[in-house]
């Protein structure tokens, strides 16, 4: 069985362009606002969505995603809301994955979590802090549910390890563009391209680049060599800083359209 994500990556390859993948935490900017924001992203032409499972101790995230997670958690977001949001995106017709730190999966039960992702129309899960050494149960669970297992690799990842991690990925490989946490940067580090090339030399899997992407210029640059461009903090920042949700959603639309154009200018 192929997932919607795999179908999408095949389609964008055929169209000779990169996919734009947007990240938003479930329950942000509010329970209702989250759905509106996702609709805006879908209508603007974003290709796929990562739903974040907001977590109390997000060590991979900078201040912007931390703030969004805190807002979401205060309003009581839990596993049920994450799955409902996933399903909402699925019904909008977009490929959708969940991005979560490991502990919420461990608490929910890895098998149950994976099968719920599949049942609600999700394509897979990105696990930024699950190492392959700890992933035996998760591999079995995701295989059984036939969903994609996406790991994040970093510029510091050795060749030997890169091979081992990439072998366990499906859907796409998440390449962290730099050494650091999430949050907008003004330029793309040269480490990103090197990492993508190293992955290409050992695997046919699509590669998506994330961390720090915030502008049309950056999206264009990355779309020149990667299969996917992942943007999170930049979208969240717009929603966080707007005077009200309505203004935020309008600005979100503008930014999304810019980035959608950016990924199409890459090649």
């Amino acid at each position, binding site marked *: 069985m192929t997932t919607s994500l795999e179908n999408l990556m095949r389609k964008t390859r055929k169209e000779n362009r990169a996919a734009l993948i947007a990240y938003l935490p479930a329950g942000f900017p509010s329970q209702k606002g989250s759905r509106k924001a996702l609709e805006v992203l879908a209508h603007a032409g974003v290709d796929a969505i990562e739903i974040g499972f907001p977590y109390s101790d997000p*060590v991979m995230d900078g201040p912007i995603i931390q703030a969004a997670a805190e807002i979401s958690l205060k309003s009581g977001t839990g596993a049920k809301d994450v799955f409902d949001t996933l399903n909402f995106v699925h019904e909008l017709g977009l490929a959708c994955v969940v991005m979560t730190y490991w502990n919420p999966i461990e608490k929910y039960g890895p098998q149950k979590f994976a099968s719920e992702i599949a049942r609600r129309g999700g394509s897979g899960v990105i696990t930024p802090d699950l190492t392959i050494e*700890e992933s035996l149960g998760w591999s079995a669970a995701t295989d059984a549910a036939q969903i994609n297992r996406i790991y994040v690799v970093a510029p510091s990842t050795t060749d030997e390890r890169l091979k081992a991690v990439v072998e366990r990925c499906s859907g796409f490989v998440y390449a962290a563009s730099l050494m650091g946490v999430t949050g907008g940067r003004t330029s793309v580090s040269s480490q990103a391209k090197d990492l993508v090339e190293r992955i290409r030399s050992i695997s046919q899997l699509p590669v998506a680049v994330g961390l720090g992407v915030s502008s049309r210029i950056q999206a264009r640059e990355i779309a020149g060599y990667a299969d996917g461009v992942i943007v999170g903090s930049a979208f969240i920042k717009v929603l966080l800083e707007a005077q009200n949700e309505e203004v935020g959603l309008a600005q979100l639309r503008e930014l999304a359209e810019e980035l959608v154009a950016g990924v199409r200018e890459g090649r």
Partner: protein
Amino acid sequence: MTPSIQPEILGHFGPYGGRFVPEALIGALDELEAAHISAIADPTFQAELRELQLTYTGRPSIITEAKRFAEFAGGARILLKREDLNHTGSHKINNVLGQALLTKRMGKKRIIAETGAGQHGVAAATAAALFGLECVVYMGEEDTRRQALNVARMKLLGAQVVAVKAGSRTLKDAINEAMRDWVTNVESTHYLLGTVAGPHPFPTMVRDFHKIIGEEARDQVLELTGRLPDAVLACIGGGSNAIGIFHAFIPDTEVKLIGLEAGGDGVETGRHAATLTGGTVGVLHGTRSYVLQDENGQTIESHSISAGLDYPGVGPEHAFLLDSGRAQYRAITDDEAMNAFATLCKTEGIIPAIESAHALAGAMIIGKEMGPNSILLVNLSGRGDKDVQTAADYFKIDLA
């Protein structure tokens, strides 16, 4: 079941431990593990560490028999292992000197550390000054207020102190911020973690630097009393002073190992930091152990009068010792700890850290259970100078 002395395989203690970290940190953790393993086997490293322990820390730390305090502990013999007399005032220096030597060995020039009570931060800043390393200490904003004296000490020692304003603004958030710094600056920086938690190799490595506490104490108690103690008691924050004093006694199955957790307002109130007593199995800060968490796996904020014990996680080896039955863990409330604090001050002329007062409160309870013929070895992990303001507030001492 009796656990083996070295239960860890690939950084695991039974189902606990391991590594749950971003891939970006794997290289640094591998490098650290290799440095630790080679240092253990390197006589030059060992000699250098030994020299520092003798001439800088002031090891071995002495044993003080607390005879007047014993009257409040059922008449049991109470032997205090005086880690409070170490340079910088707590056991934390043992680990810090070891890791600072490893930092040098790895050719890194910058250390970062988290701190709750400030004791680990002070120890880290001390080692940084001694070795000429740049040092940044992350401390929850709430803790910078509770432990202002230690903030000043760290600054005097040349460290930069960053008050962390995220989340609960305590130790767990300081660790998050230190991990973020590490992910960003991993090439130049060693994360000098202050307890036996975090991803492998930290739980094993930090234990190895603290196990000297129990090795010394075992010999000292044998010499003083002619036999092994009936029980060894220590407070549990992340668990480093406890694993340090427990470790040499693990094969002595007749010796009870008892960890005293921070019960805060009482475990039943939910306002506590008793992770092993009141938590469930989960992953926090890179390791699988017991965690205070809700049904979604979100960490629940801990509560304790003691900043050094105010942590919703605990080292994985303690989780293993609990499950295997080799150690037991009990919760001590804020009030019980402060009563023990006051008792030690007035009966022995020793002002303990409020963290260590939890172990003393345990001795007051367990001494009564075990009776006058028993011998209890208690780890006095730190001195209480830093807690004078907290104690003055608690006891409503007039400072005017």
